[in-house]
């Protein structure tokens, strides 16, 4: 009996102990995944779902990598944050470059010189003085002025596990030579830069330099000259490119051309550091608004304000309605506004979405399984649901500068070729595959159907009736209307396939759709494609293969129909039309023209258009090219995805920008509102815990009683 009493006392004490424990915690937010001391700080919380592979600006080329390093590295130019259409402005450069055209003899030409006379173009770039690198051990100096960590012994290296283990950091001013050095890094075969092969065609001396240094270590390139890239003074450098290539300006706004101190390679190249993953590919050294304070791509990446960040202010001009949207409230103020950015790896959509709703992520995309919870369509436009509005969440949408198309292999005997019959077959299929329906069913309306090669916001894209593909759509009631399926059937008859019957076999025409998707989730989409072609009597066979086999088929020209996509490198029509340029055909030249489309007239116009500056004449050429491609139909112009982003009310100054990635520096947080709302939304509910505890006590008592009675029974 006394024993039972003691047990009861303990049982009574458990809830009190539990209550004590809870009071020791912050009861208002038990589910807060962040440390208590971060409360109220200007820290932006974001998520990422795919770990970056490279953080070296000479190698990184993916969106998920740019999300981090675009805040760290700074090329000479950037896109204006608020103005549209997208416009380049100086970043670390003091002004826009002086562009000089030269003839073969190296003599200067007039700015309006004919293209055929231009043998070279010089870009003279002046950079701002007093820009400094972030504090970094590679730049740390000893009292004697030597580099502190450039001659590490094996024992010293053994003591370092991360960059934070180095007890000193240093910095220095950025000079023109650092930009030159970075271009040399792009050319070094050991860097494996994805643009190296392409730049060989443009930058003078790039290929020769690459050949010259291929046997040298990365650290030995500093003093090897590259003929086309030279530092003229401490703050000026020149890049000479072959011919005229106006799009080169856009490349200069990409991170490939950000400055890199030679000390970085000297430091990271020391033996033993790469065994600890201490490499330039993982620990950047930049001049941007932020520096990478923690690098654990499997868990979280933390950016902190760069104490050496140069003076940059929030733009004072924008689009007409930016003022009313509050996007100019911080005009002229020094950047950045946010002290720290915490990116947490969240692979699954459910926890990611829940954390956003709890206020623990400041912004979120919308996964398809939570789309209905967030967005509803009224009268064709996307609006937030009442539950989102109640939380004062805002929705931002923007059409991406990407295109997803269904391509016909123009080398294929059935769907390819340039005969009138083949063209009509492709046009018929273009009408039959109802992309509006696909967007509605499979993408929750998050895309617009393509009318041509160019997505909106790219120069040459035309709105309204003039921009409609007349071979697939009619312009009715002020909007494009897909042509009736009867028109497609008529085209099939004219193509020699009445009711979809192949005259050779006297059976339904069989077409093959090659894809890498083979999961069960993709089946509805494949069935949908089959049904679209069934409208024409065509039997579609899905050939799902793994990625390698698919790529192999594409390289050899063995595919018939396929889906492909392209995300713009820069906002210029050349970056889309080159996907159909004959000189880029995949089978012949291993280029990006996956359809192997080759039309001499199109190629001629492309060659003329690509080197032109934007002008009415260029616009006309673009429309001619659109017309040729629409008529030939090597692609079914599928869709341009629409980005949907949800923002909490405390997340300010965010304007969608589908080209620039360095936008975090402009954004601001109302931390007071965030703290208040987070507390309001996350008060824990305790009564079920008490209920559970009571239930457990009863169950335990019953079990004890049952055991005792059974033991007694056994003994009897």
């Amino acid at each position, binding site marked *: 009996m006394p024993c039972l009493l003691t047990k009861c006392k303990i049982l009574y004490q458990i809830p009190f102990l539990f209550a004590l424990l809870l009071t020791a915690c912050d009861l208002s937010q*038990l*589910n*807060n*995944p962040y*440390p208590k001391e971060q409360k109220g700080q200007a820290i932006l919380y974001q998520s990422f779902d795919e*770990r970056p*592979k*490279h953080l070296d600006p000479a190698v990184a*080329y*993916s969106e998920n990598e740019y999300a981090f390093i675009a805040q760290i590295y700074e090329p000479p130019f950037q896109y204006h944050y608020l103005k549209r259409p997208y416009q380049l402005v100086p970043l670390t450069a003091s002004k826009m470059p002086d562009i000089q055209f030269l003839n073969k003899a190296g003599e200067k030409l007039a700015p309006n010189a004919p293209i055929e006379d231009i043998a070279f173009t010089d870009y003279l770039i002046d950079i701002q003085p007093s820009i400094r690198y972030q504090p970094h051990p590679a730049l740390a100096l000893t009292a004697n002025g030597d580099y502190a960590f450039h001659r590490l012994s094996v024992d010293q290296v053994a003591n370092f596990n991360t960059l934070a283990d180095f007890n000193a950091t240093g910095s220095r001013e950025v000079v023109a030579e650092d930009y030159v050095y970075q271009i040399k890094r792009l050319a070094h*075969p*050991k860097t*494996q830069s*994805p*643009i*190296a*092969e*392409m730049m060989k065609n443009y930058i003078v001396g790039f290929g020769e330099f690459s050949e010259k240094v291929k046997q040298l270590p990365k650290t030995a390139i500093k003093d090897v000259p590259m003929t086309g890239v030279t530092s003229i003074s401490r703050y000026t450098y020149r890049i000479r490119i072959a011919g005229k290539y106006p799009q080169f300006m856009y490349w200069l706004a990409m991170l490939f051309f950000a400055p890199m101190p030679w000390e970085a390679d000297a430091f990271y190249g020391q033996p033993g550091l*790469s*065994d*600890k*993953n201490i*490499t330039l*590919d*993982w620990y950047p050294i930049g001049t941007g608004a932020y520096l990478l304070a923690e690098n*654990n791509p*499997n*868990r979280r990446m933390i950016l902190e304000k760069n104490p050496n960040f140069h003076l940059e202010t929030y733009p004072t001009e924008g689009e007409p309605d930016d003022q009313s949207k509050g996007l100019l409230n911080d005009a002229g103020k020094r950047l950045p506004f946010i002290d720290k950015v915490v990116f*947490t*790896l*969240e*692979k*699954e959509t*459910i*926890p990611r979405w*829940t*954390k956003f709703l*709890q206020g*623990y992520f400041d912004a979120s995309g919308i996964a398809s399984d939570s789309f209905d919870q967030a967005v509803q369509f009224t009268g064709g436009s996307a609006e937030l649901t009442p539950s989102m509005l109640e939380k004062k969440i805002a929705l931002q949408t923007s059409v991406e500068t990407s295109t997803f198309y269904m391509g016909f292999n123009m080398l294929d005997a059935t769907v390819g070729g340039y005969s009138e019959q083949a063209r009509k077959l492709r046009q018929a299929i273009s009408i039959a595959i109802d992309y509006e329906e696909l967007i509605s069913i499979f993408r929750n309306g998050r895309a617009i159907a393509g009318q041509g090669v160019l997505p909106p916001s790219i120069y040459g894209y035309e709105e309204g009736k003039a921009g409609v593909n007349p071979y697939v759509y009619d312009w009715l009631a002020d909007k494009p209307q897909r042509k009736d399926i009867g028109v497609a059937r008529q085209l099939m008859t004219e193509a020699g396939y009445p009711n979809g019957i192949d005259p050779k076999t006297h059976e339904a025409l069989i077409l093959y759709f090659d894809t890498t998707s083979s999961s069960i989730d993709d089946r509805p989409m494949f069935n949908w494609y089959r049904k679209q072609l069934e409208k024409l009597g065509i039997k579609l066979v899905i050939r799902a293969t*793994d*990625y*390698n086999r698919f*790529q192999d088929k594409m390289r050899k020209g063995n595919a018939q129909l396929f889906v492909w996509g392209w995300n713009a*490198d820069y906002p210029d029509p050349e970056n889309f039309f080159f996907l159909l340029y004959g000189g880029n055909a995949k089978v012949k030249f*291993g280029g*990006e023209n996956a359809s192997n489309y080759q039309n001499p007239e199109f190629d001629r116009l492309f060659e003329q258009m690509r080197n032109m500056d934007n002008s009415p004449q260029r616009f006309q050429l673009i429309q001619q090219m659109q017309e040729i491609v629409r008529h030939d139909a090597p692609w079914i112009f599928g869709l341009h995805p629409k980005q949907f982003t949800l923002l909490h009310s405390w997340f300010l100054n965010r304007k969608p920008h589908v080209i620039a990635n360095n936008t975090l520096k402009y954004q601001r947080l109302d931390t007071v509102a965030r703290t208040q709302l987070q507390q309001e939304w*996350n*008060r*824990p*509910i305790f009564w*079920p*815990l008490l209920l559970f505890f009571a239930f457990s006590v009863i169950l335990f008592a019953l*079990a004890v009683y*049952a*055991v005792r009675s*059974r*033991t007694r029974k*056994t*003994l009897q």
Partner: protein
Amino acid sequence: MISYIIRRFLYAIPILIGVNILTFVLFFIVNSPDDMARMQLGQKHVTQQAINNWKQLHGYDVPLLWNAKAQGEEKLTKTIFYQKSVGLFMFRFGTSDSGRNIGADIKERAWPSLTIALPTLVIGLITDICVALMVVLFRSSKLELGGMVLCVILMSISSLFYIIGGQFVIAKILRWMPISGYDDGFSAIKFVVLPVLIGVFSGLGSGVRWYRTLFLEEVEKDYVRTARAKGLTETQTLFRHVLPNAMIPILTGVVVLLPMLFMGSLIMESFFSIPGLGSYTIDAINMQDFAIVRAMVFLGSVLYVFGLLLTDISYTLVDPRVRLS
């Protein structure tokens, strides 16, 4: 015993070589070095020259298994197989095809995996055994029948359901703990509780049924009857006599798992954002990163062999009749 252990280690060598060859052959049947290069270089502007550069830089520009052009022993040593495999046997995993040191990555990711897996195993084991003994205590009663039906129901539900359901109820509705995340040191506790609870609960049905079977086999034996005849209560009999005698099959199942705990759980880690090793191999297969695949398969084989050896040794600890020779 020492000679037995040495012998087992020597047996492991041909097994590991065999596993390595098998992994190599299976991987390169599906992927070629060119495919790997394309995957690593991305999808834009990839030229044959860039592919050749990548292969040369990563050591994939030599033949796979036999270098006919080389002389003497280099016919064997100047091959991808030899150059990529020898270091493994000295636990030098090298660098992944994307440039990270694999050994450092494994070291960093194994601990979070263990933080989840070890408490789940220990608490799960204790819970399963206690509940199984309770069920055995009420054998041949309606309580046992009810318990077994409940176990079958628990077993029939996918572990994904427990994860999503647990996150929904505990983290979203009741807001008792974070839905996902991880931290270092003691701060990790608040992130670990939910996955451990879910891990224990999701394994309860099968665990209880398995241990119940083991205990039922023991409970009818003569020594148990003798214990009862001595006047021990049923609970005393079960915990003091039945449990120790059922340890051999329990250990067989548990000890072999211990080294594998480092390898992590794919789904659990993915849903709870635990930075463990769970997805390391799968991600590597998807990325065609042979260096990681090879290292992880090798490590898995070593740990498995080691686990089996531990199991054998543990038999001698729980059953004095067992001698390793």
